[in-house]
């Protein structure tokens, strides 16, 4: 089978829409604040931080195909890192706390990833899914029963962090912190996705055996991605804990780990801003419905998710997809036969 040049396109939303989306969110903060809608500012702040988590999860799952049910573990790791440092060691510098969360996640990702990907036998994604799921469960249980880190009560009354000598106050201060974190993570994601490395990531997702056959060290690539996404997930969790003022064991559990997959699935796998769309739709858009129908909410989410999977397999971001090419990426057998074209498209 032969495909003509230009058939392959980079997945995801059109750049102009993506930039407009991010700019819109960032501008929404001050606008809402000026309108006296302080609660919506806080909601949006939370969504931005969950967005960081979702964007990072997508790098592992959507782009590289690492089916992780353990992103909540990293989120929790970061949250406990900042929570413990702020309450037990009186570390209040936001920069230090954020760095500590990031560091905790990187180390955690490196350690867990080493066990996951360097097994003697080749690892299937089912294996990765089950192990990370078990880890989510185990960490939640551990946090729930370990007295030194607050057991079931978690870490409470976390003081406000400081930046450049001033308190980072609830409201707009935290909104800017979250916005900067999100934009930075999106920027990093953009660099990664535009690099040659992203081609290897996707190649491993689509056919890891063939990628290895071509000489790529699958475990190394997976480990690098897993470590990076672990760090970013922990950064999100660390900032979230400071914003909320408390850490609960449910921050690192199965619920959050699966919820973030829903964000990614709904918004669009393998799209940089897609997962962010998922977060915004469910966390900000659906908030009112969730409040009024707490029992029915999971059913509504399930139904929406089903419809999206059936009709928009690449998620909501497909609505703003790039022009040209087909909606579905070619299967790898086909892609390898493309000749003469630049597989990076556009």
């Amino acid at each position, binding site marked *: 089978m032969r495909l003509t040049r230009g058939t392959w396109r980079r997945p995801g939303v059109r750049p102009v829409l993506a930039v407009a989306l991010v700019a819109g969110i960032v501008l929404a903060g001050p606008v809402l604040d000026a*309108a*006296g*809608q*302080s*609660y*919506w500012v*806080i909601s949006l702040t*939370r969504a931005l931080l969950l967005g960081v988590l979702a964007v990072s999860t997508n790098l592992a799952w959507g782009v590289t195909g690492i089916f992780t049910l353990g992103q909540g573990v990293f989120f929790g790791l970061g949250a406990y890192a900042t929570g413990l440092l702020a309450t037990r060691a009186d570390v209040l510098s936001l920069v230090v706390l954020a760095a500590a969360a990031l560091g905790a996640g990187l180390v955690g990702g490196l350690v867990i990833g080493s066990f996951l990907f360097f097994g003697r036998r080749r690892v299937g994604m089912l294996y990765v899914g089950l192990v990370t799921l078990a880890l989510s469960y185990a960490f939640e249980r551990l946090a*729930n*029963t370990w007295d030194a880190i*607050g*057991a*079931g*009560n*978690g870490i*409470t*009354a*976390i003081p*406000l962090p400081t930046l450049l000598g001033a308190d980072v106050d*609830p*409201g707009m201060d935290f909104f800017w912190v979250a916005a900067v974190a999100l934009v930075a993570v999106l920027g990093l994601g953009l660099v990664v996705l535009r690099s040659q490395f992203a081609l290897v990531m996707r190649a491993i997702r689509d056919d890891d055996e063939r990628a290895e056959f071509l000489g790529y060290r699958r475990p190394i690539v997976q480990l690098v991605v897993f470590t990076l996404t672990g760090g970013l997930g922990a950064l999100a969790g660390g900032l979230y804990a400071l914003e*909320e*003022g*408390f850490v*609960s*064991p*449910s*921050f690192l559990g199965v*619920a*959050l780990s699966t919820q973030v997959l829903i964000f990614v699935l709904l918004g669009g796998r393998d799209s940089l801003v897609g997962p962010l769309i998922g977060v915004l739709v469910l966390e900000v*858009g659906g908030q*009112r*419905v969730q*409040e*009024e*129908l*707490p*029992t*029915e909410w999971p059913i509504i989410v399930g139904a929406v998710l089903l419809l999206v999977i059936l009709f928009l397999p690449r998620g909501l971001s497909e609505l703003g997809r790039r022009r040209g090419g087909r909606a579905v990426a070619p299967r790898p057998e086909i892609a390898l036969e493309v000749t003469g074209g630049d597989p990076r498209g556009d």
Partner: protein
Amino acid sequence: MASTFTRRTALQRFAAGGAGIALGGSLLSACGSSDDGAGTGGGDGPIRIGAITDLTGAFGVVGKANQAIAEFTVGEINAAGGVLGRQLELIVVDGASDPATWGKVAQQLVSRDKVDMAIGDVTSAEREAVKSIIAGRGKTLYIAPASYEGGECYENTWTVGAVPNQQVDPTVDYLLEQGARTFYLCGNDYSYPRNVLKAARARIEQGGGEVVGEDYIPIAATDAPELVRKTISSKADAVFEVVVLPASVPYIKGVVDGGYTGLIAGTLFDETINPLFGRQAQGLIGAQDYFASIDDPFSREQVAAFHQAYPDAPFGSALNSPAWYRGLYLWKAAVETAGSLELDAVNEAMNTASAEKLIGGPSHFVPDTKHVELTMYLGEMQADGSVKVLKDLGPQEPLGQCA
């Protein structure tokens, strides 16, 4: 217990569903209209009371009871002219039995609904999750009604439920009076059972008794076969247990049916919980701030009125119902003493707030402890789920709190 409410709940949900779709349609407009100027201190609009509890999830039954008593109490206060001449407006939010969700909805009460006071907790983890959001960063008075392990002294936070010594000491004294000398202690492995059993051990040893064993099962356990075995083989004269639902049901049934002959005491028995144990509830001992059978005309009258207004909602000490009523009235008394809703003034008045007409009996804050003195009752559970009051214990002071 849950099965009693499911049909009614289903109907309410169905009705709420219709309203919810309409609300869903106005999602975007909701975004631009949440601040309407009411609340926050001054003015003559309604005073906003935020009630936070678990309407859904594992503690949904407790939450439904909490919502009902909050509505009942606020309705009663409003009918009598409100507070400082202003009506109360109750805003109820659902924490879904998950501390992270509690954080979210607490934020909503404080920064969106701008409540003047917030009340509610079911577990300590939930209280811990919201206290800094409501009372710390939110600078809003927070009342925690659940009976708990003690030790909550956070700023702007006031607890109105029983602490261990108020329930444990009179219960242990009764067991000792009954001639018990050896005791077996057990519970789930988290702070509440551990602190209750710590208080029990201290009182037992002080009274000349001996603890022959102390064991814990995981917090989320659904069954407790080892505890049943160890309880029976301990051959202790009495067991003091803080096994929580759902494991408490197989535990009690197992111990009773397994032939344990000693006394069984705990902190979690009352009319709303007993039916779960079936006929094995017979003879269980416990102290609470209220039982349906207490000899107090005011309590009887109020609870009858409550059941008439909310025929499907349970009312019981184990669901913290009397504590919600108490908390709202103690706050009312404090605000009226302070003459304003200003936080420092209300805090100062709370320190000595007292109320005579409360369900279960009069109560007041013991100055500088942030905890309340309670009239307690010792009860013996019956096979039909009712409670025989063994003793009116009179006022019991909270010990060792925030001193």
